[in-house]
């Protein structure tokens, strides 16, 4: 009973925060759309759901998400094996670098993919407007989700069970299929669910790479809201998407619980150098695949940032970052946008880690259906269109204090996006603290405070640092919600990149690519620092 009351008290702040800055604005804008002149009007629901064009959009959204998930698993599972099982020079660095795509803003990824696989592709492949480009970009984005989730579990599995199967005459493949795969299945399913969620709600990638004929629900919600202000249609679509995402989270929750049981049998990792030519070829092949899928888009960004007007290379774009040039449409120099981004990200991180930490502590204490439901609800911001939230702010946050144009809204919106990641990172860690340790400490005469300091604090501190690192990287890269509220005098890096890309003149484009590289380096550094702190317990099986 006391435990439960504690959990409720801990949940108060995060729930209040999400209510004010997520649920209330979304309810406002959806309500605005569904309310006619004379009370609620739900007649539009049937009309929207019956519209063949919109049904086509829903169908495309669904199947491209499924196809993206399959493709991501195909390329990421071998990489997960290599990184979880084999030891080789540079493994740690590589493990950090593969997370970079996941936290890069979609404008940057879109620009990189268009440069690489667009009409002017250096490799002669034009995938713009084709589904292939979208699927590849989704695989690029979500690769880390699979590697981290599945690899986290994989590296803790005892290799001896598989070796025993081999000893008994099973082939390598048989041993994998009958021994390892069943254990990994829940983690794979969970990673697949998350990848599906992100691909289902993908906006920037589809908008930039999809060409004109390919739109998803998320893109259509944006169009109906921001371009057409057809709120009745936008509201129905937003509800449809929320329902789909909710259903997906229920499925994911089922899978997560199954994983919970296997995760209990974790052991320290057992990486070793590759043995024999087969394993070495497997390692090299995987590294090459990683370099192609993840490396080339990033390398393209780097190359484009140095390109000059005459086709050569130079530092012109980099030098220009220091000034707000006339006609660039920027009111501050791009370097100041970096300072803005860092400042906002620090505030967002503090808010997200504080509130997310409280939520994680509550979820770790509480059990049962209510906790699982809350866990799923905390993920809903990820399944909601940024424009829905942004336009919701406009009509919901005007009273009692008009926050709509306030600069504090930017880090708060970023915190809404980062919060689910923090909860996801911290909950398993806090849950892993064995209550019997406390009992043992009490028996040995330690006060509760001393027991907390000796047992919980070291683990909690590490979990907080890891969560903070990811919250920071995500806040740095957040684009959707930020762009709706960003003020001209304090733009963030992703907003500045988007503005530079929207201007004529080669120097502006070059600066956009140079800033993308800066963002990439900042993100990679945050992730690298986090990885140094990541202990074996922290983040295992989490999706970052």
């Amino acid at each position, binding site marked *: 009973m006391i435990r439960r009351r504690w959990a409720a008290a801990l949940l108060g*702040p995060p729930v209040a925060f999400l209510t004010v800055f997520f649920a209330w604005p979304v309810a406002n804008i959806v309500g605005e759309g569904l309310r006619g002149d004379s009370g609620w009007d739900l007649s539009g629901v049937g009309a929207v759901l019956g519209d063949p064009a919109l049904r086509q959009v829903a169908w495309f959204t669904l199947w491209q998400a499924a196809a993206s998930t399959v493709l991501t698993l195909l390329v990421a599972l071998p990489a997960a094996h290599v990184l979880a099982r084999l030891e080789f020079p540079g493994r740690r660095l590589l493990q950090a670098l593969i997370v970079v795509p996941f936290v890069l803003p979609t404008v940057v990824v879109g620009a990189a993919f268009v440069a690489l696989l667009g009409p002017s592709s250096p490799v002669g492949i034009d995938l713009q407007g084709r589904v292939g480009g979208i699927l590849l970009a989704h695989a690029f984005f979500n690769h880390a989700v699979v590697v981290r989730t599945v690899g986290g579990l994989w590296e803790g599995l005892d290799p001896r069970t598989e070796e025993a199967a081999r000893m008994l005459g099973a082939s390598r493949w048989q041993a994998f299929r009958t021994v390892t795969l069943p254990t990994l299945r829940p983690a794979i399913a969970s990673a697949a669910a998350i990848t599906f969620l992100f691909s289902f709600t993908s906006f920037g990638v589809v908008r930039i790479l999809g060409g004109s004929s390919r739109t998803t629900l998320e893109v259509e919600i944006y169009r109906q809201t921001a371009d057409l*202000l057809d709120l009745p249609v936008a509201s129905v679509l937003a509800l449809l998407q929320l329902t789909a995402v909710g259903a997906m989270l229920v499925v994911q929750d089922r899978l997560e619980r199954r994983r919970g049981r296997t995760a209990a049998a974790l052991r320290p990792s057992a990486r070793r150098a590759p043995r024999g030519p087969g394993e070495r070829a497997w390692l090299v092949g995987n590294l090459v695949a990683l370099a192609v899928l993840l490396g080339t888009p990033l390398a393209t960004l780097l190359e484009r940032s140095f390109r000059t007007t005459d086709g050569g290379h130079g530092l012109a774009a980099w030098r220009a970052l220091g000034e707000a040039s006339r006609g660039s449409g920027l009111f501050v120099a791009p370097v100041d946008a970096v300072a803005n981004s860092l400042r906002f990200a620090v505030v967002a991180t503090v808010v997200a880690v504080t509130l997310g930490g409280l939520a994680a502590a509550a979820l770790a204490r509480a059990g049962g259906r209510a906790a699982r439901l809350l866990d799923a609800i905390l993920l809903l911001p990820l399944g909601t269109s940024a424009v829905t939230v942004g336009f919701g702010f406009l009509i919901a946050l005007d009273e009692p204090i008009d926050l709509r144009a306030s600069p504090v809204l930017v880090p708060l919106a970023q915190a809404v996006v980062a919060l689910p990641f923090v909860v996801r990172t911290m909950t398993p860690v806090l849950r892993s603290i064995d209550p019997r340790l406390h009992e043992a400490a009490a028996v040995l005469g330690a006060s509760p405070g001393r027991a907390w300091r000796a047992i919980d604090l070291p683990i909690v501190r590490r979990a907080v640092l890891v969560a903070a690192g990811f919250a920071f990287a995500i806040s740095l890269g957040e684009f959707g919600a930020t762009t709706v509220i960003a003020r001209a005098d304090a733009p963030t890096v992703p907003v500045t990149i988007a503005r530079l890309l929207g201007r*004529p003149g080669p120097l502006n484009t070059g600066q956009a690519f140079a800033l993308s590289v800066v963002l990439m380096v900042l993100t990679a550094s945050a992730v690298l620092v986090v990885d140094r702190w990541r202990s074996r317990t922290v983040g295992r099986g989490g999706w970052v």
Partner: protein
Amino acid sequence: MTTITRSLLTSLVLCAALTACGDDADTAADDAVTLRLLTHDSFAVSDGVLEAFTTETGIEVELLQGGDAGTVVNQAILTQGNPQADVLFGIDSTFLTRALDADLFVPHQAAGLDAVDDDLRLDEEGRVTPIDYGDVCLNYDKAFFAGAGIPVPTSLEDLVDPMYADLLVVQNPATSSPGLAFLLASIGAFGEDGWEAWWSDLRANGVQVVDGWEEAYNTAFSGGGASEGTRPLVVSYASSPPAEVLYADPPIDESPIGVIDASCYRQVEGAGILAGTPHEEEARELVDFLLSERFQADVPLSMFVFPARSDVELPEVFVEHAARPSEVFELPSEDIEANREDWIDRWTDLVLR
């Protein structure tokens, strides 16, 4: 639980209030009003210009950029009567009727309106004051046409000639403002009965459609300094040639791109005082300032459009490289408002499906 939620809400609101009050306290000390100017992402102004307004009037200006022009107007309509800003800049004829129908603006006869040509006046009642205008035109890659030995097309009709097959890239009017302008140009040129046939022919002739101006100009078009595209014809602006000159590094004397005169659609952009603002008098002063010579002279090189006032001297790079088409297409705002969705849907069926 509820008490906790309530106390938390209170503290959240309080801390927000403190931040807000902090701002107010600063301005209260100077006894100055801070106006909010809501505008689109393409708005730009040189350092010192808005500051000059503040020095002159004691009124501070804070900029809010909310997306593209359509998004910003929609945001203003959504908050009609209780606006998040005091003045909106960046409404053009495409969205004018929608905004006027929503009673978005307070009428204002701006000082300096005498210096604006009659055909740029957006609204007789003065609810929207014209500030600048720009022409969306076909641009061409000079080097390509010189090298290929084919003449530069001189009209929209030319584009369906097999000689120009697979050379043109345009933007989707559903997602791009220049794309919509070009669709409107074709409706202006061929009429309500003729534009669809022309677009069918254009499709048969291999027109490429992309979502936004950036992709069209930077990745599909072959003429821009930053692009490595393959198509020598693109829908862009009459002011793209000077932009290429201004941002070239190393510097160049002649723009690598040209403008096809008979392909332009004019967009007049204006500003309005948002109904419900608590600072209506100060907002009037700001709109007057936007039409003052100081601001107007800054418009060309900041936003790459022409000032609404005809008595302002243009910068040299503009005089030398920007196109001044003699004839432009324009459609009445009411027609656009009444037909926009229908036109876009028909265009989508015709060109993309």
